[in-house]
């Protein structure tokens, strides 16, 4: 066998013929299912793949995707964005955050709108850029508005580590790092949930290892298949789930072996443990408060915590989505975007009312753009 080429890591896992063949294998096997499979793909990246490559259209009717709460931008409650906006409005504060976070509206507008009003808000591609901004602006306080699941937390840890090491004192953190397993528990806690299988996130699992889903398998007796992000990965994972269902098994499988191990990146996990501790509760947009579902800085790094330093100046009022918004039900698989009264009417990607419409990875947003093509 010849040596692996970089391009094969893209094209090989996107090959239309392989996708087509896996689709026909799934169809054949799915005919033997005794009950429908309602697969939750927890992660927004998978939602994106499913929509972009039109995988929904390739699957039989008895396999359904339920798009889970795995987009860090979508699940951010408005009050957290309001806090970011409040920080950005303080004199001498530069707010730094990642990419498309600045588009998401809080209760008084998005960070992009606050930037237009004159706040110094800088979207960066790499967290370490915040270090440079802090160094270049010694008379300002730079606040890194940290977002993301387990995937992105170690990078924030390195940023903090570097700031400590280099003695950069004007870099603070507003931590919004959230955790996948408690979100799965929140979905499954609903007695009416229809979810009976999971596709496990790709890159969360690169860091954490596939081990974090064993409790899900044990507690809820559902198959969990950790899957890569490419369309062939997703189709192969669906095939594995259908196989498990047909054979009456509920197991943890790892389709994404080229990148995910059982134990994950232990060096990264150690860094996270060194700087972070579990937050007793965090409110998720659409799902409400979930215990132990997020992280905060360890007490020894309180001096870096913007939430503590500016505590009394940050708005704490919890802001719920519009009453008509059914995101909570959609995230639990109890409703489809089209079932929601405001979908496509009051609630569109330009003016999102709920979490699922906010980013291109949200279920409603994806349906709004992709579904209904004739």
């Amino acid at each position, binding site marked *: 066998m010849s040596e692996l080429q970089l391009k094969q890591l893209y094209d090989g896992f996107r090959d239309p013929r392989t996708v087509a063949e896996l689709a026909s294998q799934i169809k054949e096997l799915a005919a033997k299912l005794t009950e429908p499979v309602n697969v939750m793909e927890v992660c927004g990246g998978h939602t994106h793949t499913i929509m972009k490559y039109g995988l929904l*259209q390739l699957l039989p009717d008895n396999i359904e995707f339920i798009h889970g709460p795995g987009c860090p931008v979508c699940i951010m409650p408005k009050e957290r964005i309001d806090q970011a906006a409040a920080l950005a409005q303080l004199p001498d504060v530069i707010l730094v955050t990642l990419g498309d976070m*600045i588009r998401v509206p809080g209760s008084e507008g998005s960070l992009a709108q606050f930037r237009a009003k004159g706040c110094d808000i800088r979207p960066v591609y790499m967290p370490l850029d915040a270090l440079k901004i802090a160094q270049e602006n010694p008379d300002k306080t730079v606040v890194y508005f940290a977002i993301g699941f387990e995937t992105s937390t170690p990078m924030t840890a390195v940023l903090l580590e570097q700031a400590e090491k280099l003695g950069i004192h004007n870099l603070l953190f507003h931590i919004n790092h959230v955790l996948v397993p408690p979100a799965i528990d929140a979905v499954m806690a609903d007695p009416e949930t229809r979810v009976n299988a999971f596709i496990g996130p790709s890159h969360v699992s690169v860091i954490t290892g596939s081990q974090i889903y064993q409790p899900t398998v044990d507690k809820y007796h559902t198959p969990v298949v950790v899957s890569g992000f490419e369309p062939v990965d997703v189709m192969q994972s669906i095939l594995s789930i259908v196989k498990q269902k047909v054979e009456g098994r509920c197991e943890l499988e790892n389709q994404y072996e080229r990148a995910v191990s059982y134990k994950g990146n232990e060096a990264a996990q150690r860094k996270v443990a060194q700087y972070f501790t579990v937050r007793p509760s965090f409110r998720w947009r659409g799902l409400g408060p979930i215990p132990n579902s997020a992280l905060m800085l360890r007490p020894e790094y309180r001096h870096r915590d913007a939430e503590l330093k500016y505590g009394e100046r940050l708005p704490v009022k919890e802001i719920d989505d519009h009453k008509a918004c059914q995101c909570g039900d959609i995230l639990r698989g109890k409703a489809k975007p089209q079932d929601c009264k405001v979908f496509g009417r009051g609630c569109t990607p330009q003016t999102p009312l709920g979490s699922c419409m906010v980013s291109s990875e949200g279920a409603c947003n994806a349906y709004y753009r992709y579904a209904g*093509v004739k």
Partner: protein
Amino acid sequence: MSTPKQIQLSHGGGGREMAELIGKLFFEAFDNQILRQEEDAASLNMTGPIAFTTDSFVVSPLFFKGGNIGKLAIAGTVNDLAMMGAEPQYLSCGFIIEEGFEIARLKEIVQTMAAELKKSGAKIVCGDTKVVPKGCADGVFINTSGVGRILKPGISVHAVQPGDAIILSRDIGCHGAAILAAREGLELESELQSDCATLWPMVEQLIAANLPLHAMRDATRGGIAAVLNEWAKAANVGIELSEEAIPVRDEVRGVCELYGFEPWDLANEGTFVIALPQEIAAEAINVMHQFCNCDQARIVGTVTEANAEKVILHSPWGSKRYLELPAGELLPRIC
């Protein structure tokens, strides 16, 4: 007194320094009879239908692989005229220069503009220079307006019809990706070059071949996604595209993978689309293939009556989805 190396406020003051700058730099580079008259306005002798366009250029960085702001300012306006079936003839040119801008760099920009003008034969016949205090502009901004005689009337977004083929002149996204790669903070290295080019020579040949062109447009900001959506709306038609048929080079794909962008949303500066009857598409492509800039020209889609106002992208995976108008600010996706 030695000649300054940087632009000073006095260069825009209307006095001696300005006269010198204009004389030495602009007149020498753009030299032509009409400009030399130095009247308050250029006096032009034109008859028949005229196309008239204007565009302002504010690119950052000013210099990038495959061009600079000057090349963009000429090619951009010349292309807008060409896309209307008009021969680019006369251009105006306004510079807004930031105090402290290096004269050597200004010279390079101006010389690039002069070289680019030769590709279409258009002339700069009037101009204006302003200098603003440091911090009030980002190096240099350029506005160009242009007029040209319409050689082929009737080319219009409203003329796009069901049954038309959509031809794309070359691979997409090079300009947008090259600019992103050169942007401060991203620190990317690649061989990627902007596609920035004057399109008049190709259009001239298409017109000479007397082909019934329905619509033409260069896919600048917003990429082919923006142009095709505009066409679908303006002509009240549907447009179906084949993703496989649209050429995208590896480096552009690389930039897209890195930041979660899509190549159809990225800007181009020398790439255009044509709508014309299916049966003459092959002939038009033959004409285009004579130019190395268009040697990848091909049919990428068709115009339909169904799905009016929508652009639908057919994937090689057998699925289809709407190709939307891109969002205003391209922000890297982290997820």
